[in-house]
């Protein structure tokens, strides 16, 4: 399962997520979605720290963020 997932069809390409990402792993895809925007995307999933800054800045509820459960004991 991906740590950070983009519902690209909702993305308006505003880039606020990219600017907020401390890992600088969000890029705007060269393709266009059906609304005509270059959607935000992440290819280096393993570098995501699940901070959710991107999701917090996204005005369009594009992003779902997950993290691994901490192993107890």
């Amino acid at each position, binding site marked *: *399962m991906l*740590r950070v997932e983009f519902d690209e069809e*909702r993305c*308006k*390409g*505003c*880039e*606020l997520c990219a*600017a*907020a990402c401390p890992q600088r792993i969000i890029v705007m895809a060269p393709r266009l979605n059906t609304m005509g*925007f270059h959607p935000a995307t992440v290819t280096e999933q393993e570098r995501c720290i*699940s901070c*959710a*800054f991107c*999701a*917090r*800045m*996204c*005005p*369009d*509820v594009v*992003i*779902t*963020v*997950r*993290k*691994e*459960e901490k192993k107890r004991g």
Partner: protein
Amino acid sequence: MITVFERPKSLTPAKTHYCPGCTHGIIHRLVAEVIDELDVREDTIGIAPVGCSVLAYNYFNLDMQEAAHGRAPAVATGIKRVHPDKVVFTYQGDGDLAAIGTAEIIHAAARGEKITTIFVNNAIYGMTGGQMAPTTLVGQEATTAPSGRNAETQGYPVRMSEILATIQGTAYIARVSVHNPQEVAKAKKAIKKAFQIQLERKGFALVEVLSTCPTNWGLTPLAAMKWLQENMIPYYPLGVQKTPEEVEV
């Protein structure tokens, strides 16, 4: 894997009509998250304004009423008086709240209506085409202030939070911004507080959220965030203007 961030239940899956980078979307989401966290979705009635957020009723997964321009606090008053046990909030822009609806907001506050108001201040009229707002900064360009707002002929921007904080009926007044993740987190905290104040029946609560309008400011979404930080915050300082007196432990 556990989900740390997804769409709150109090938002519908509808795509918004807002321009790319418009922070209305962030503020909608914060309100919805707070309603979810307080577990009041089924007891909440929202009031959508006239302005860019006129279609807010399509985005909040709640009972909603659409108000005439500026009248949301009056509509909220009517609802709250009928259902004093429900959570009632208005979502209003700067033209709605600080121009045509000034009387309604001032008097809802003066009556200490037990409602919550989310006041989105982006210093411009978005929906009608970038006209000067009551909160447009001196020198800021607008379609009805093409050379920038001239204080001599067009007066000065209104600081609504400061005005409302002077009114005895208000319990909580805060100004926040959403220009970076840290400020978004603070904004959410303030919005939550404003709903809690209502649940505790302490009085009128309002959160003014400084917001961007990339389209009508003529800036990219990122440049708009920077402009907000550099130009709006000095005139509209962030912080809590008023809070109930009891000390929180």
